[in-house]
């Protein structure tokens, strides 16, 4: 466990301080939001903005800003603010404090209609331009007649003209700015592009072969999961969590289970904790194998893809035996597991470990040592440490830039405090480092599994739960480390059997911000490779 620091953050005089769910929550009035953000960033050292959770409290709209200081990464500090104006709600932007806020604020704007003054880009993030209403508001009208299904693409006028807002004498004033100059050469990548790993739409401005700017256009797989959660009971939400980032399905589900268990103040039995940890690491291996394979395929190596998928099938077999599902296992429940492990589970996992080690060497021989591949990957798409933190690029992508941000180490959950493992770190921050960190993580995951597989304790696999689970009133936030970075779950409960608000912190959304940041100056052919090395999953960022 990390040592607790006695350094407590001095609250600014305009803030109300409370301690909720292990977090320090500062409530500030809307007009002091920017001052508080600046203070927390510069004086208190909270340089990593984890997430912005937009909220509709009925009488007021507002947001939670979860942040963390990188020198005390286990700590989570929350800034809370609200505005009572429901007609033209506006808050001050903090995108000059944390760069990642620019994307998060667009998301809050899309869902709640809150305008952020000072954010240079106030387009909708996910929904189409002509969408009526703000879906996560409690008074949203979901009548399909308001938003009928279009069979023709609407022209993307918002791609050329970008709205932004300023505050003049307390009044909200809207402006427009041109996105591109007249003679700029724009190429569309996606949404249907074979190397986009899904339906991401990038507008790339080119100067010959060199990228000038990248403008990601999201929402082609926005499924409205967070709104659906508000009408679902807690066990029903579990199956949606898996479908966010389907490659880390188990880990996402784990996060939601942990968050509910924390709220209910129960603990899963030790047997379940061990099995969950093993299954999480198997998921991570499967995800990295696929990420490795598809990244190599983006660079032209079909063999690597077939090798990666071949080894991944072994993990799928283990999942299938125990849980019945391959990709979506639906195995964890609140309070434990859905069923006990298969009698062959331990044997198969033990067989898999030496097999995977052998294959990992083969993977390195196949691709890592290839001078052409290495030559392309080295020194391209460099993400510096400061940028990684400011952009919130967690996970292997951040660790390749030298940012130690592994939740398994800094705030251990499940059985991670009982095992000995290293967090692979690199400092170059280029594509090659990101590639290597993933392969090194497979080795570490095997080490974790090795230490746990012989020690799975006997006993029950699940806590006895009531059929209807009601979380006590309050705000709960839980982070876990999924294969792409920090996955967070924020549950706001009012004591009902359904949550009042659920927010998932996607590790992939900041990664696409990082892509926007690091690609200018690279060749257009490297765009795909850099995207592959960031290894984002589009449904996770769109939710």
């Amino acid at each position, binding site marked *: 466990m990390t040592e607790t620091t006695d350094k407590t953050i001095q609250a600014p005089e305009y803030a109300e301080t409370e301690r909720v769910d292990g977090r320090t929550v500062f409530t500030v009035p809307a007009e002091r939001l920017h001052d508080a953000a600046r203070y927390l960033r510069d004086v208190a050292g909270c340089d990593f903005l984890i997430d912005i959770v937009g909220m509709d409290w009925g009488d007021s709209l507002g947001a939670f800003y979860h942040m963390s200081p990188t020198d005390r990464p286990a700590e989570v500090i929350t800034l809370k603010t609200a505005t009572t104006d429901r007609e033209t709600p506006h808050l001050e932007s903090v995108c000059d404090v944390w760069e990642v806020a620019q994307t998060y604020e667009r998301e809050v704007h899309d869902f709640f209609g809150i305008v952020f003054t000072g954010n240079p880009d106030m387009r909708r993030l*996910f*929904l*189409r331009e002509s969408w009526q209403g703000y*879906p996560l508001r409690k008074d*949203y009208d*979901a009548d*399909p*007649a308001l*938003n*009928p*299904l*279009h*069979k*023709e*693409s*609407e022209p993307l006028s918002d791609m050329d003209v970008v709205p932004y807002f300023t505050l003049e004498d307390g009044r909200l004033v809207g402006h427009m700015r041109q996105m591109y100059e007249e003679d700029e050469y724009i190429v569309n990548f996606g*949404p*249907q592009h*074979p190397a986009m790993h*899904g*339906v991401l739409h990038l507008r790339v401005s080119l100067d010959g072969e060199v990228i000038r700017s990248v403008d990601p256009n999201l*929402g*082609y*797989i*926005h*499924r*409205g*999961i967070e*709104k*659906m959660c508000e*009408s679902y009971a807690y066990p029903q939400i579990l*199956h*949606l969590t898996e*479908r966010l980032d*389907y*490659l880390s399905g188990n880990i996402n589900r784990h996060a939601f289970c942990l968050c509910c268990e924390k709220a209910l103040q129960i603990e899963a039995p030790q047997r379940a904790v061990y099995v969950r940890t093993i299954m999480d690491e198997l998921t991570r291996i499967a995800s990295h194998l*696929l990420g490795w394979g*598809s990244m190599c395929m983006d660079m032209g190596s079909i063999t690597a*893809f*077939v090798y990666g*998928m*071949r080894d*991944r*099938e072994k993990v*799928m077999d283990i999942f299938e035996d125990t849980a019945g599902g*391959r*990709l*979506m296992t639906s195995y964890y429940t609140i309070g434990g597991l859905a069923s006990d492990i298969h009698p062959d589970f331990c044997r198969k996992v033990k067989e898999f470990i030496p097999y995977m080690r052998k294959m990992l060497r083969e993977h390195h021989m196949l691709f890592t040592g290839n001078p052409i591949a290495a030559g392309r990957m080295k020194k391209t798409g460099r993400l510096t440490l400061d940028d990684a933190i400011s952009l919130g690029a967690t996970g292997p992508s951040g660790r390749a830039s030298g940012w130690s941000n592994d939740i398994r180490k800094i705030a251990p959950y499940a059985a991670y405090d009982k095992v000995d493992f290293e967090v692979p770190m690199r400092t170059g921050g280029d594509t090659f480092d990101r590639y290597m960190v993933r392969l090194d993580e497979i080795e570490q995951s095997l080490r974790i599994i090795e230490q746990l597989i012989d020690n799975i304790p006997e006993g029950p696999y699940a806590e006895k739960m009531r059929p209807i689970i009601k979380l006590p009133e309050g705000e709960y936030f839980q982070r876990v480390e999924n294969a792409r970075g920090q996955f967070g779950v924020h549950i706001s409960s009012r004591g009902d059997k359904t949550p009042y608000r659920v927010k998932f912190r996607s590790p992939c959304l900041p990664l696409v911000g990082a892509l926007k940041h690091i690609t200018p100056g690279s060749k257009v052919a490297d765009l795909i490779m850099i995207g592959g090395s960031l290894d984002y999953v*589009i*449904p996770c960022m769109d939710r």
Partner: protein
Amino acid sequence: MEIKRKTRIRNMRYEDFNDNESLEKYVEELRAGGVNIFVGSINDIINWGRSNSVWPLTFATSCCGIEFMCVGAARADFARFGWEVTRNSPRQADVIFVCGTIVQKMAPVLKRLYDQMAEPKYVMAVGSCAICGGPFRDSYHVVQGVGEIIPVDVYVPGCPPRPDAMLYGMMQLERKIKLQNFFKLPDQPSIPPQSGAEERPDTENKQIQS
């Protein structure tokens, strides 16, 4: 391939032709001489070829896409069925696997991709999202099944379907192709018009008649 000795062409039965005997004798002679020959209709041969080289479009929006990749990888290996040439351009593809959820913003893109494909073209709705919205049926932004946008030939249920299920779906489509008359392909079934959505006159989508 199934060898039809008694070929029936259009409405004429085998017995109605005059020169069956000489043809049969000729075939016997050739076979005796060691030549491999069978008698059938051109349609059967074309369909045999078509059904064994169906080229899918590389298209996936979410989870089912991963299982689609598994079908393409070593274990399930749809190359055995002649399906392995995944095309990146809809112009070259015969079938579109709708793998994953289709949302409101993606629907026009999918429709355009379908329109860009050359006839004859087929659609497989893979997974419960593509069939009916699946787990996202209550969502404000999810299309309740791709059948609302494009006509579907084969539905493969599952969330996501196993690779074996997808292979079974492929074989069903092969069967469907083999039963078609290539020279008289039916018009693509049109989608019933929806309330609230305007229907575009389907000019590009007209069938090329032989």
